[in-house]
């Protein structure tokens, strides 16, 4: 597969390490969230057949974490964003 890195352009997916569903960006706050909140965050997945937002790490590249939107049936890649930008857009900060 080829991932079109927002900064570096097309790169072989082999340079990346896959983590999983981009919902992992939405980590609850440990001081307020319950075990069940963390259970749902850590363990439950939509696992769609179709468009899937997922986290890839450019380990053999510039070490950017990316959010790749990819069709899990065709492997077509629909969008690639820097995970840091997505995280900030989702309200994450410090």
């Amino acid at each position, binding site marked *: *597969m*080829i991932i079109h890195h927002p900064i570096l352009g097309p790169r*072989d997916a082999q340079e990346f*390490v896959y*983590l999983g569903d981009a919902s*992992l*960006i939405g*980590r*609850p*706050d*440990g*001081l307020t*969230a*319950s*075990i069940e909140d*963390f*259970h749902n965050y*850590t363990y439950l997945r939509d696992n769609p057949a179709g468009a899937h937002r997922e*986290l890839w*790490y450019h*380990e053999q590249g510039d*070490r*950017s*974490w990316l959010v790749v939107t990819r069709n899990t049936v*065709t*492997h*077509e*890649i629909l969008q690639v964003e*820097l*995970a*840091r930008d997505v*995280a*900030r857009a989702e309200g*994450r*900060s*410090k």
Partner: protein
Amino acid sequence: MSQSNRISGGLIDRSQTLRFHFDGLPYLGHPGDTLASALLANGVRLMGRSFKYHRPRGPISAGSEEPNALVELRSGARQEPNTRATVAELFDGLTAQSQNRWPSLKFDALAINDRFNSFLTAGFYYKTFMWPASFWEKVYEPIIRRAAGLGSLTKLEDPDTYDKGFLHCDILIIGAGPAGLSAALTAGRSGARVILADEDFRMGGRLNAETFELGDQAGSAWADGAVAELSSLPNVRLMTRTTVAGAFDHGIYGAVERVSDHLIEPAPGKPRQTFWRIYSQRAILTGGATERPIAFENNDRPGIMLAGSLRAYANRWGVAVGDKTAIFTNNDDGLRTARDLQSKGVDVVAVIDSREGGELLPGIRHLRGAEVMGSAGRLGLSSITVRHADGKTEVIKATALGVSGGWNPNVNITSHHRSRPIWRDDIAAFVPGSGEIANLSVAGAAAGTLSTHGALVTGDEVARAALASLGLTATAANLPKAEDAPVRITPMWYVKGSNRAWIDSQNDVTVKDIKLAHQENFTSVEHLKRYTTLGMATDQGKTSNVLGLAVMAGLTGKSIPDTGTTVYRPPYTPVALGALGGRGRGQEFKPFRLTPSHKWAQEQGAVFVEVGYWLRTQWLPKAGETTWRDSVDREVLATRKSVGICDVTTLGKIDIQGTDAGAFLDKVYANTFSTLAVGKCRYGLMLREDGMVFDDGTTARMGQNEYVTTTTTANAVTVFRHLEFCRQVLWPDMDVQLISTTEAWAQFSVAGPNARKLLQKVVDQDISDAAFPYMGAGNITVGGLRARLFRISFSGELAYEIAVPTRYGDAMIRKLMEAGAEFDAVVYGTEALGVMRIEKGHVAGNELNGTSTALNMGLGKMVSRKKDSIGMVLSQREGMTRDDGLRLVGVKPVNPAAELKAGSHFLKTGVAAKAENDDGWLTSLVYSPHLGHYIALGYLKDGSNRIGEKMRAVNLLAGTDTEIEIVSPHFIDPEGERLRA
């Protein structure tokens, strides 16, 4: 032996003669021959045996679709089983032997199977061999396994090497026939980066096998001209002997280049084959079409071939397969073969044309509305039986029969993404569906355009479209005039009869087998394939799948497309495993990582051990030491008595800077680091989000906004990845910068009562306990050279870790040993390191197994609940916080002389060795020379409340059952006075 069947013409170099052997007999051929063409030229039709019935087999094709003519090419370690003689390029000195026969090809004992064919029907083995159960492995299966298989490997290591590589292009063109050459000319002339790959050693495809002209030249001459022009273009890469084996995602194709297979052996330093990963913007498949047979009784004899292949042997290789040749066809292309052969002086005894009407061939016995009912000839064809239109039958002597059931476009690669081709009635064949693989287009015969004119035109058109989509403009093409005969075919799949008519001639799948599958309700195409093994042979059914489908369609009364189609899978043709493995073999399987003291340790005769990619000193034998234990015991005792040195460079080091570095560490570690004083170290426990311990190590605060974190050797990479995730994704606004410095610093542990005395001799600063207390850290100098010092201990002794820039590591170990001479300093390896950490009760790899919590390790208090950190919440789940859960304990044998084994399980005294009595297991074991007996760590249920209990460590694998006592995991200096000394 003379080349009795060699006729005039062809694209072989008759000025040179090549000598080769088949089954020990010598033959002659010419450059340009394949093994098959040369054997046929020498009058050899019998080249193999079929899989199940061991029926005689000769080639049916002249290309890579060949299911029958499989041989063992070469001998010794280079022996290559299942090699298709039809694509094996002839070279001087070639040797090959037939396979899957015993004792000889002409007399094969297992041909007895053919006599019992009525018992060995499709799937018969599913219905028997069940009694008694134990007989399967002992009796039936060994017989079956010996009989099965095709060619053999020698079990000798492949002596050749293989390369891999990466290529980039705008347009990849797969197949260099008329369509491919036309596409390549259009694309190449436009300046696009083009790769043109063809599996053959000569480009031109069918043009090399035909007699018709392009413009005013022979087809092959036009192809030569096109190739000449293309090779003059710097933006075009021509790759012959290169098979594009698979289409992968996003324009990536895998291709194998047979660099040296046409040589007796590769040139020194050169690979046998190279596997290329091709990155393409666009790809064009111009892979041509493959002819298919018509099934009739005993249609599998050597001498019975695809008509177009018979034509190819005559036109390209100057070979007449038989002295009397007949043709059986349901379409006009069969007639072309008859014409070509006759014009070459081959005696065409009859053309059996299943169609009524149509053009009548002049000067040839053209039997229209007729069928071939059967054939005769023991090891090769001698005659055929024909049923005339009027129903009369006639036996016609023939030593070669060309069969044409029509042509199947080579859609294979278009279905590599599991999409299905579509049926076209007008050519009675499947063609690629549209847009099945992104940016792949198909032209020429592969797309169902079966005329040469059509191939040239569509090749050009498809190339133009590809160029346009890349924003490139094509110059006008000047395509030569070429034959443009329409496809005239009246589908005819098999001739009805009561005996076996072969469909898959390698696996011996006959019309009868398909009927049986239908009778037993294995009617879906996948059931048909799996039950009869149709299309499972080495050719993936290139010549048999559609025929099999058609027969099943006839039985179910459904149309062929409704019956289904088979999805071809990569690779297009079988690829040597060596090529896919590349250079990753033997010592080069994975790279080595060498420590800064490696050179010195090698000089000292150290024994090394693999730790991931690292090689670390395991122990360092001294003269007179006979066992590894001698060395390890000495290293441990000397360290505890005076001082020992160990290269600990392999531990991961991560530089963490930024105004939020402390806050960041508080998030990623279970314990707190923001409160750590500058110039101090602290041990840290890192959890995964699921609350399990991920990693541990010490972190030093080198400045207000500057920390150096160490990880375990095993987790250096994953911890760094995780920290980047936390930094970029979870807390994107924290001011934190990370970089690994693992390799930048050569780091040595100096441990033992005399560690300070030794180090004071080499460092420039005062490191007295007052100046550099326990858990101190700082930048110092060594002979003026910048260095780092950390007062941390894994051994439990007074210990430091000192780091210098890596290029000085070699000098540093020598300097430390020199300075340590007066203290009898030793270097200790990973074994002694393990002994001392277990004596001290530190956890390591065997305890950090990914399923252990801080609580299990007795470090529960380290998980701060006052702050949010990764894993803090889920570490509180009920199943992980049970009071009677696993706890880290120390273990010692009650009898000091007794031996223990890591991996033994803990059982109470007197209970049965059953899972329900399993109380835990022994994780790490060492012999403690200090205590004079084995000591161990382990995880024990409710362990912290069982100190002092006597129980058993059982190792049922070795049948040992040893009485042990559960003790504290801290075997020495539990109060830690030594390290604070």
